């Protein structure tokens, strides 16, 4: 644990235990999403599915990166991950992104994907709001993740016909915002 780092955050008025619970819940959301997106990606097939497979894969890998980036901050602040994987799954900040009943229903798949991203956008916005000007390191991390989650949301939203995302998909390395926390 980074004792003084935690103390600074506490002195700034942040309820660190509550923040840790949120960080663990969001770490659970990232890792479980990585798992559920694996199943979704496998089922994105055919003429319509293949077009979405690559962005689903990028979102999947970046969500795993988010999990990896969150874990050190949890331990720095004196928190820990649950020993039990099932408990960890059930504590997730977002509902499971289950494969729709009609796994060839591409629109239903996209709805599942976009809802998962929207849940994440809400969650990291909330963490940013709680830590802004108080816990600079957690804020920086949550903001980096938020940037990527917003891009994921806009990609899937575009495929649903809700309007242009405004940018291209990734070329080359993943996690342009979060990668600095992974080095």
């Amino acid at each position, binding site marked *: 644990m980074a004792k003084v780092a935690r103390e600074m955050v506490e002195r700034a008025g942040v309820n660190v235990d*509550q923040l840790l*619970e*949120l960080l663990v*819940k969001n770490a659970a959301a990232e890792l479980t999403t990585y798992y559920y997106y694996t199943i979704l990606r496998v089922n994105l097939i055919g003429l319509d599915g293949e077009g979405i497979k690559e962005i689903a894969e990028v979102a999947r890998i970046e969500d795993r990166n988010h999990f990896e980036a969150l874990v050190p901050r949890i331990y720095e602040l004196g928190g820990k991950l649950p020993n039990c994987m099932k408990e960890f799954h*059930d*504590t*997730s*900040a*977002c*509902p*499971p992104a289950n494969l729709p009943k009609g796994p060839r229903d591409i629109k239903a798949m996209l709805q599942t994907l976009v809802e998962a991203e929207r849940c994440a956008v*809400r*969650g990291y*916005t*909330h963490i940013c*709001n709680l830590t802004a000007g108080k816990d600079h390191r957690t804020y920086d991390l949550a903001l980096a993740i938020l940037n990527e989650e917003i891009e994921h949301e806009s990609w899937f939203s575009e495929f649903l016909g809700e309007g242009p995302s405004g940018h291209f998909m990734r070329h080359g390395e993943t996690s342009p915002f979060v990668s600095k926390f992974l080095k």
Partner: protein
Amino acid sequence: MREITLDELRTADGREGRPAWIGYGGRVYDVTGSFLWKGGVHEARHAAGRDLTAELEDAPHGVEFVERFPMVGRLITKGGST
């Protein structure tokens, strides 16, 4: 519509198998089955069994997330409905 007092609402805190109800805008909603309200707590900050009208103002979502749950009744205080 069923009338629910604050005392009655407090007993539906979602713990130890009890139902999880929340108050919002003078109405009471049943969030028992929600993945995001397991154990009667939402996002580590919001507890079931209470009127969350004020807390929702700071939430990163709107009232539509509350209104999608089944409504149990109308929340009343000593002086009448809230």
